């Protein structure tokens, strides 16, 4: 656990981003909730509608709410133009603000409803206008309750903001997701400690303000406010105070290989003097749309994934023909540039423990059809929704007794512990060899080809210098090199960081 300190100290950027995001979301939540509460106090219908909406939002899992803003913002581009960001800060801000709405709104409306009617009558009786009554009587009397709501909202928001990582916003979720991916518990713990600590500090400071308002002690109120302002100000300065040079944003989906390749590309660019930033842990569909819309600049994707998921194709041409068609399709539909293959394939393949497969006499997916009825199949969270799986299932007539979703990293543990009998593994995964797994043959060719390719966003693709910086990677990484790199971060002991693994991979391929 002595590793925890350096891990924590490394989180400065994430902490600053986390504070800025949470503060902005709470501020926006307050800005929407308070006028709404005033309106609601004058109209029971508005009160019911507003509270109903806020409660409904609250029932949506935070992760889903964050993800939903990507398509929403994408469709809003029709109104606001192509400059509207669809990933990162904006969707995270909007989703978290919606989340912060309920506690603030509910406390503000309750506080208004519980105001002594005699006091309100007196305010009218002494001749206050609507605004005077609000400012001089209703606001000061409701303030402690509203502050309690803001406090709850702050704790929720700071916790939920860790999920912003999945839509490409830097936050304290970065170490949590990266650590979860590679079973690096020190990273997970560091992220949790940092975000929990932040929540506790925010709760304490806002609690001080609340107490100051309740007991009418201005020193407490303003002291608390000043401390909050100082913290948020420092975070904003750290984030935006530096140079505002253009950073090249490299996307990565949520598994080790993607993290390593993103660092490898990033290191190549940094060597040539570019500033880079990473958007890690993106979902497959989000990642692809992000690069085609320019939300990220560079992404490593896989031919079979684009072929079946984005292009919706069900045929299975030879790999060169497939790549050519994909490149043409990307150019036509969005102007996204396909730089080329990295050299290895990371296919989906059904994997079993070697001795189990041997004992059952299963060598190919076709052999599995008879035995599947008593088996559990495991896959990553998107696997069973993907057309490739549906194609494989229907081609071989697979009927498994049960199917379970695992995060990619736990899938292999599940196979070892017997919680899954077959998994949808990745063929470039180092754990296939390390764990003694058998990849079942696919005699009918139901799984397409999954060559790893580099995609550049339309704007970045037309930048010759950036292309030249990444070009040396094309065709340079064979599957053995990739497996070794993947295993070096995934294994239980002596784990490398993504940066170290990327550097070793660069050395191995002679860069």
């Amino acid at each position, binding site marked *: 656990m002595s590793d925890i300190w350096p891990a924590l100290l490394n989180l400065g950027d994430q902490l600053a981003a986390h504070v800025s995001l949470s503060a902005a979301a709470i501020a926006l939540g307050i800005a929407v909730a308070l006028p709404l509460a005033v309106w609601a106090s004058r109209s029971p219908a508005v009160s019911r509608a507003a509270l109903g909406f806020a409660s409904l939002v609250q029932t949506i899992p935070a992760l889903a709410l964050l993800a939903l803003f990507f398509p929403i913002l994408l469709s809003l581009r029709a109104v606001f133009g192509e400059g509207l960001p669809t990933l990162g800060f904006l969707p995270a801000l909007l989703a978290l603000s919606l989340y912060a709405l309920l506690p603030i709104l509910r406390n503000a409306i309750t506080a208004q409803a519980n105001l002594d009617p005699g006091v309100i*009558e*007196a*305010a009218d009786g*002494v*001749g206050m206008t609507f605004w*005077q009554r609000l400012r001089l009587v209703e606001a000061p009397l409701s303030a402690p309750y509203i502050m309690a709501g803001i406090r709850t909202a702050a704790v929720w928001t700071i916790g939920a903001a860790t999920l912003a990582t999945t839509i490409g916003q830097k936050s304290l979720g970065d170490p949590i997701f990266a650590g979860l991916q590679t079973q690096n518990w020190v990273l997970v713990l560091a992220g949790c400690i940092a975000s929990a600590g932040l929540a506790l500090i925010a709760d304490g400071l806002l609690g001080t303000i609340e107490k100051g308002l309740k007991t009418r002690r201005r020193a407490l109120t303003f002291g608390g406010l000043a401390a909050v302002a100082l913290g948020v100000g420092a975070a904003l300065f750290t984030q935006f105070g530096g140079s505002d040079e253009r950073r090249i944003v490299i996307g990565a989906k949520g598994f080790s290989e993607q993290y390593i390749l993103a660092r490898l590309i990033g290191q190549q660019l940094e060597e040539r003097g570019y500033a880079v930033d990473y958007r890690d842990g993106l979902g497959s569909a989000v990642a692809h749309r992000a690069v085609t819309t320019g939300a990220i600049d560079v992404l490593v994707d896989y031919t079979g994934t684009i072929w079946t998921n984005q292009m919706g194709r069900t045929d299975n041409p030879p790999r060169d023909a497939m790549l050519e068609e994909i490149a043409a399709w990307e150019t036509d539909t969005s102007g996204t540039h396909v730089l080329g293959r990295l050299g290895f394939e990371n296919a989906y393949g059904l994997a079993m423990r070697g001795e189990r497969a041997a004992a059952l006499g299963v060598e190919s997916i076709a052999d599995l059809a008879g035995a599947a009825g008593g088996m559990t199949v495991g896959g990553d969270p998107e696997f069973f929704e993907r057309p490739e799986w549906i194609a494989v299932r229907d081609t071989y007539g697979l009927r498994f007794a049960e199917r379970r979703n695992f995060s990619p990293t736990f899938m292999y543990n599940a196979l070892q512990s017997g919680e899954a009998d077959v998994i949808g593994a990745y063929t470039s995964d180092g754990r296939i060899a390390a764990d003694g797994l058998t990849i079942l043959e696919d005699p009918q060719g139901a799984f397409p080809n999954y060559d790893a390719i580099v995609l550049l966003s339309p704007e970045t693709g037309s930048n010759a210098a950036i292309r030249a910086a990444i070009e040396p990677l094309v065709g340079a990484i064979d599957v053995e090199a990739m497996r070794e790199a993947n295993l070096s971060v995934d294994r239980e002991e002596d784990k490398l960081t993504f940066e170290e693994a990327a550097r070793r991979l660069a050395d191995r391929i002679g860069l």
Partner: protein
Amino acid sequence: MTTEVQAALEFRAVGKRYGAVEAVRDVSLTIAPRQFVALVGASGSGKSTLLKTINRLAEADSGEVVYEGDPVGSLPLPALRRRVGYVFQSIGLFPHMTVGENIAIGPRLAGEKLSPARIAELLELVELDAGMADRMPDALSGGQRQRVGVARALAGDPHLLLMDEPFGALDPVTRDALGARVRKLHDELGLTTIMVTHDMAEALLLADRVLVMDAGAIVADETPQALLDGHGGAVAQDLVAVPRAQADRLAELAR
């Protein structure tokens, strides 16, 4: 110069309904300056509503209320309410303001700062210590709070003081003392006062003129003496009978 004094307040065929209930029906009457008028009636008789049509806490549906020559509907609401002192049963002191700030609120709304000396003077008018100005309302007794309520109503030098069951929540001793004090202030400051009460004894003892309301209409308009002499009709006499019987029984017991 005419000999006729301008009325302080005039109701012209005032009506007010809440849904199907006719709270006030077609009330017309004139109140002369410096009169102390008690408005008496059972709960739901419309007396509070009629009072509130004056400072428009309730807006009349028909007819109009004229205050010192101006129809109240023509006056800007805040200005009207600052010209009319208003005291009511739940007192409604602002709990987050000191006694002094509560008293000074009306002038403050008009952009005027009340001096500490004037606040002390107002506290003295209601027989409170000037040192109370810095206290918070929750540190006062019920009677003290209503005294502050009266001081607040008087802070803007109104000509008209409206009181809606002002002593209803107070204990009998405090109630009697504060009633007497208000009557004295009425005389000293030359106010026109309208007090809503359900207590006929209080009305008879404090007022110059007693209006009895029943089902939204004025059913009696008499001096206390005339009511005691049996005038004013059945509803009014039923109300007068209660304190009279109590007084008789007390007199018997004392013998």
